[in-house]
């Protein structure tokens, strides 16, 4: 019963490098989300998707891109890593809209040096 799986768990990047954070869910959820959590702060929504082929910006989308080619996968792309993107990234999924509880992965801790 995997739920939401994120890879990698940790990563260190150099400024200007690019990478993709992977997220997959096995609950057949329509909705998927990417959040970032900075130290001492709450989670802020980066991008979300209401179904395969449909994505939309959240509160803090700048510097990121997403795609949703399948129901299961929702990768987050950083094209030109910047120190301000050092954070913990959480992927989540839910069956329906905001009144359905979201299920979270265990996060990817990303440091940009």
């Amino acid at each position, binding site marked *: 019963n995997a739920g939401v799986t994120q890879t990698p768990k940790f990563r260190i990047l150099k400024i200007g490098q690019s990478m993709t954070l992977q997220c997959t869910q096995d609950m057949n959820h329509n909705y998927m989300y990417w959040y970032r959590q900075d130290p001492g702060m709450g989670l802020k929504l980066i991008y979300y998707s209401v179904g395969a082929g449909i994505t939309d910006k959240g509160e803090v989308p700048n510097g990121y891109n997403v795609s949703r080619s399948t129901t299961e996968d929702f990768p987050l792309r950083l094209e030109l890593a910047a120190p301000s993107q050092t954070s913990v990234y959480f992927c989540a999924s839910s069956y329906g809209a*905001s009144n359905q509880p979201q299920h979270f992965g265990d996060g990817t801790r990303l440091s940009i040096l």
Partner: protein
Amino acid sequence: DQQVKQNSPSLSVQEGRISILNCDYTNSMFDYFLWYKKYPAEGPTFLISISSIKDKNEDGRFTVFLNKSAKHLSLHIVPSQPGDSAVYFCAASELRGNLIFGKGTKLSVKP
């Protein structure tokens, strides 16, 4: 401009006593509220929720109270257990909107 505020960064409670975590919000259009619990190095897990049409929801040791006129909700844990030690996030949303999270309150339950 924080729409969801958890003004207590931390709370320490003795095992067996009641833990009360508070949350205030500014957006009167919020109609659904959730509490999440987070252990270190893990993702948040859903704990309990309440719709704006209710003022109380109970699930075992956990009860959430909503005071719409004060734009305030609280999570009560009775009795508190050491395993409840975690960071608790309050979150709110408008109908079909996205979740807005507070900064969290770290609860420590002492044996």
